[in-house]
């Protein structure tokens, strides 16, 4: 049996808030195979960031299991978890706050070595860190600088170098370019593409920007109210969205390409933002909603292009 870089089985996460329990994640399951990449897309509150944090072990799950390279990660002890943490790296949204401001750039990158390779001496660690920094395209003059001296794009490269220094097979990317300018974003995305191809990496890519999905990943999951509502190969899902929410998302994206400007439809001015408690969470916003939608929670299914809807489009 071959093991995959990441397997997530029915993970759930709940919070206690003022007005009751918030189900941030409900029964999320998916698998990323070696060399393949997956995106999770959705808007704020859909649970994608919670999913990233739970998978990375930064928050405990309330149910379900996370497996890295076939081994149980979420249920493991801290010591066992530490060993498994070598198998993945993580890149966050805000590069400046993801680095210790009082440590130099190379020291930040060498942290994983210090934690996992305690036998390695300090100068070897520095050499490896500098090698990785060159690999991500950072000039030598920046190695001894402090994070406050570098720009956003440069900092994100540093965070990437730190994520890759232990040669993991999986990198979790939580909105890695949202805080960057458009022209810098393109540079960082190109770098991510190149590293994925040369190092054979798998990405778990969390984003709200659907246009980036196909740049970095093969498959996509669309999340709404803590559940996956549609999943499948990115090209297929975007060309033929079957869930009304996916359709609405795609329609809302402004496209600057001449010829693709959409005339603004007269949109419902007062949209319902909250999630429904029973049945399908999307039914309060859905133009296709029928009585059955309030009784049954539609399951996702296992098809290649799966959709959690009782009356999918097409």
């Amino acid at each position, binding site marked *: 049996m071959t093991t995959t870089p990441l397997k997530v089985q029915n993970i759930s996460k709940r919070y206690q808030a003022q007005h009751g329990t918030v189900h941030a994640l409900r029964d999320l399951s998916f698998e990323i195979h070696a060399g393949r990449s997956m995106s999770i897309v959705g808007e704020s509150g859909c649970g994608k960031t919670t999913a990233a944090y739970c998978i990375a072990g*930064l928050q405990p799950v309330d149910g379900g299991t996370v497996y890295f390279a076939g081994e149980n990660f979420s249920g493991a002890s801290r010591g066992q978890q530490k060993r498994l943490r070598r198998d993945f790296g993580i890149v966050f949204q805000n590069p400046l706050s*993801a*680095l210790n401001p009082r440590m*130099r750039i190379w020291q930040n990158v060498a942290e994983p070595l210090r934690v996992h390779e305690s036998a390695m001496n300090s100068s070897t660690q520095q050499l490896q860190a500098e090698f990785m920094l060159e690999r991500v395209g950072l000039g030598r003059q920046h190695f001894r600088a402090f994070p406050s001296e570098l720009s956003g794009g440069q900092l994100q490269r540093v965070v990437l170098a730190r994520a890759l220094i232990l040669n993991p097979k999986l990198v979790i990317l939580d909105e890695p370019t949202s805080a960057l300018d458009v022209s810098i974003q393109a540079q960082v995305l190109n770098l991510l593409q190149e590293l994925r191809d040369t190092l054979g990496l798998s990405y778990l890519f969390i984003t709200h920007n659907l246009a980036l999905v196909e740049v970095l990943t093969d498959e996509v999951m669309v999340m709404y109210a803590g559940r996956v509502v549609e999943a499948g190969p990115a090209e297929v899902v975007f060309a033929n969205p079957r869930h009304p929410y996916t359709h609405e998302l795609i329609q809302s994206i402004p496209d600057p390409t001449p010829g693709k400007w959409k005339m603004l439809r007269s949109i419902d001015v007062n949209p319902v933002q909250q999630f429904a408690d029973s049945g399908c969470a999307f039914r309060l916003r859905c133009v296709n909603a029928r009585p059955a939608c309030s009784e049954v929670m539609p399951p996702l299914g296992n098809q290649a292009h799966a959709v959690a809807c009782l009356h999918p489009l097409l």
Partner: protein
Amino acid sequence: MPSSTTSHLVPWLARYIAWSRRNIFAAACATGFGLIVLMALLAPFLGLADPTQIDFSSKLLRPSSTHWFGTDGLGRDIFSGVVYGARVSLLVAIGVVTIAASIGIPIGLVAGYAGGWIDTTLMRISDVFLAFPPLLLPITLAALLGPGLLNAMCAVAISWFPWYARIVRSTVLTVRSDLYVQSARAIGTNPSSIALRHVLPNSLSPVVVQASLDFGFAILTTASLSFIGMGAVPPTVEWGLMVASSRSVFLEYWWTAMFPGLAIFLTVFFANVVVDGVRDSLDPKLGRQP
């Protein structure tokens, strides 16, 4: 960590100097403070009279060319006493602040990082010390510990550590959720390593400000303790003690209280102005007009 301190120190010094050039009053105070420090450092080499030398034949002499600040009731040269007293006062200030910070910082770090019942317990213990009026606790502790400058310093430090604990704790609470701490957790760094390597160094800047503010107050409080007999004892040369010993005679012989009192006042005043400058020059937003 040392490397980051020095590399932050040099540009800061340049900014401080640039700031001083624009603000003459503050620059003058900084110079005054610098002179006091210099005076304290060089005291033994200045060829001054022994400040503890008792000489009844020259008691209560007015300020003159032989005794610049006059002499006190026991014939001791007051100028020399003020200069040597500076050593004691500055050492006391550094000592008190160091001891208070050394107790407060670890408590604040552990309370803020661990949270839960550890946090509650530590903070409630600190609250006990905070509940006392400012001078009452040091006086009580000094009375318990007995006379002596070291005991006075400890008494003051023990009553001040909660401030440091609180400051560090509240910064730690913020830093704890910063992304680089989450990254360290994601990498697998163990919690004590995270606390010491990542959280602590980034929680210290407010402590620096508090410490520099406390510098002047430490001098004042210890002098006050000495004044009421709870602090320094002879033959230690200390400004508060000098004012105390002049109590019975200063109405007629004004110089016996005036000069040590002025020394206390000026040192604390200069120290506070210098601290304001430290804070202002650390703030990049106070840019100047083009």
